[in-house]
């Protein structure tokens, strides 16, 4: 019993260490660095590929962030900023391809393939289960004393095909 109690305490201790998320502060007139970064986080500049714009250290990206600041100061919404950049620099600036034309493939192909896999697996399983032959019925259920059940299962697993 003692070690079970210990287990509780451990688990609780393990999960207690969770902070509460930070609070937002009201947006002042001029866009803050944080607001710019929030927009830039979802953008990529062609000069430093695969590094989000909010952390990319190149001069080109610095200018982009200045551009975002200017657009936001003019009262542009997040979406308008994205639209501006897509117009000027192409779709590649977005962290995710826009849902148009050929780009749909990126969103459609994985679910279709995965679904096909599930369907194939389902039929395969049904196929396998059909001839429920005299399957070896030597499972844990037949064990007598509850004390030994776990040990029995363990030994049985070790013995199975070894």
């Amino acid at each position, binding site marked *: 019993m003692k070690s079970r109690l210990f287990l509780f305490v451990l688990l609780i201790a393990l999960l207690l260490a969770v902070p509460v998320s930070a609070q937002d502060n009201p947006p002042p007139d001029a866009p803050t660095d*944080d607001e710019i970064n929030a927009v830039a986080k979802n953008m990529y500049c062609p000069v430093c590929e695969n590094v989000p714009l909010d952390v990319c250290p190149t001069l080109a990206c610095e200018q982009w962030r200045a551009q975002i600041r200017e657009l936001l100061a003019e009262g542009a919404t997040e979406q308008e900023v994205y639209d501006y950049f897509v117009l000027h620099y192409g779709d590649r600036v977005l962290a995710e391809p826009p849902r148009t034309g050929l780009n749909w493939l990126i969103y459609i192909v994985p679910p279709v393939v995965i679904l096909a896999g599930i369907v194939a697996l389902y039929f395969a399983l049904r196929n396998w289960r059909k001839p429920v032959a005299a399957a070896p019925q030597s499972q844990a259920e037949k064990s007598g004393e509850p004390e030994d059940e776990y040990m029995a299962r363990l030994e049985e697993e070790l013995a199975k095909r070894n």
Partner: protein
Amino acid sequence: MLASLGYGALVITFLVSLYGVGAAIYGVTQNKASWVDSSRNAMLLTFPLLTISALSITLLLIQMDFQVEYVASVTSRSMPMYLRITALWGGQEGSLVFWAWLMAAFASAVTLRDWKRDREFLPWVVVVSLSTLAFFLILIIFFENPFVRLWQSSSGEIISAVWQPAGTLPFIPADGRGLNPLLRHPGMIIHPPLLYLGFVSFVVPFAFAIAALITGRTDDRWIRVTRRWTLWAWLFLSLGLVLGGRWAYDVLGWGGYWGWDPVEIAAFMPWLTGTAFLHSVMIQEKRGMFKHWNMFLIILTYDLVIFGTFLTRSGVLSSVHSFAQSAIGPLFFVFIVLTLTISLWLLVRRWAELRGEEQINSFFSREAFFLFNNLIFMAILVICFWGVVFPLVSEASGLIGQAIPALSNVFTGQKITVGPIFYERATGPLWAGLLVLMGIAPLSAWGASTAKTLGRKLWLPTIISFIPAVVIFFLGVSGAALLAFWLVSFVTAITLYEFWQGVGARVRTKGENVFAAFWALVGRDRRRYGGYTIHLGIVLMAVGIIGIEIFQTETQGTVPIGGEIALGDYLVRYDSLADFNTPDGRNVARASISVFRDGEYLTELNPRRDYYFESQQTMTIPGVRSSIEDDFYVLLVDWQPISTQSATFKIYHNPLVNWLWFGSVILIVGTFVAAWPEKDRAAIRENKHLRVQAPASAD
């Protein structure tokens, strides 16, 4: 001299590999054992030969012999000794040699095992391993030769060639270009070697699988032989990935460890199939099912290793990892086509012999859960593969648009980016599904298991797992985070419950004390409890990942000296800035800041910005305060003017992130428990098993 020696050793290794492949095939087809033995010796020889080659490069790097083009491109006089050595894998040419050297090490190690009981595999294992090695040697010798030297002709022209062209003199640059600053980090010493080790060690199970397919010895012998190899391969690959994350966290300065960068994913894909393989081979061992699937998985893992190397080496991708543009892409492609089609053709040929021996009797059986686990891993693989490949397809589709103007509106050839958002959204639920399976599967039984029997074992740990979930709910956590934490506690509860039950049973039936019982329990079935330990490691890592993914907060601000920036409970004060040049060719701007929490002084941090004069690159090195609870991670933002008057800081609060690193240590422990060679008892058991099996396996 050294360069000629190293180059000579490379060429000889290549010839030896070709000889080994030929001798093995000749020996096995003509039934001449001495030829097979000879091929085995050839494979053994590759390791010392490539050691000579790798050592020559290392010595050249240490001596800074800048006449050698590779040395000049990755080292410079200002680099310390350890970096000059690790520059062996800092550039394309050297790292290919390093790859081949590790591959040869594994190939040689395999030849040294005891082949008595599976001699028929030997020639084919030699063929597969040496062909792979020979392929890499072709790349090195003909395309990416690290021993190419610089020569100056009488007209002043600089020529690169291995041997001195007529009428030229050696040309020795005054200094080298130096290693990419990004790679000048202690993490770089260990991350690539581990990743490469993981890559090359997957060649071994693949070689045995192919040997099994060719010889027709398609029982699970090949799986038993390679079980430990696979586990070590998996461990190396896992650690390579984790250390890569650590390196990114410490060096790349974006407050994270994993950016879903195409090259990261290229290394991650073989890990996915490898992990699926580790689980599904157990079904074959215990139940004799899924033989096709296991073959397919190992073939896929091998080709994903090659594909990953192709992606990083051929210049197909541009990312922080990719090596410079290179001509070896088409060769990689040919190699992938050959290995994939030959292996799959062999698999189809043996299709009938690989039929399962039993059926799945229940959706609640262990094998069914393993099957679902495999399904999820494959789903994640599909997402990752398509995410990496689609931007290239999209760009290449412009060629169709150019050829057929009518279609140019659809096939625009636009470059696109597939960023973390895509992968996180698509794979998030799948990871949750894996956690559920990780929790339930250990309680299910092989063969038959019903919802009822499973439920009987499940209810107690499930209830226990809700307790911490309720506690954190009252702490204000809700939504996806709450679900994720509950899943974590669910898996933890069940795994610990399994240990607890086993220990309890031993204490009751054998009268051992708790520690002895625990020791004996784990010793009795190391694979099982090693596996559970790995699960616990993964769960701890999951805590770290949930922490940073869901609870990360950040802010950025420009402050004068004495100015303060607040983030949550934390407050930083900008105290001073030191700006100086170092003897190894850097300009360093190093800030001193004080960190307070709830008004209480915690520590001083020194985020800095290093500018490398040689390569004109900057590095932002964070100042980090780590604790078990969180990381407080401060960057001196380089792209705003830095002065002693004011500076810009970007601050991240990364809760629980250290659990990720801690979990990976547990993962190592677990793998050691599961994979450490067993002593006599196992051998005895195996012998007994063979005696019984002998008449049956004579098919």
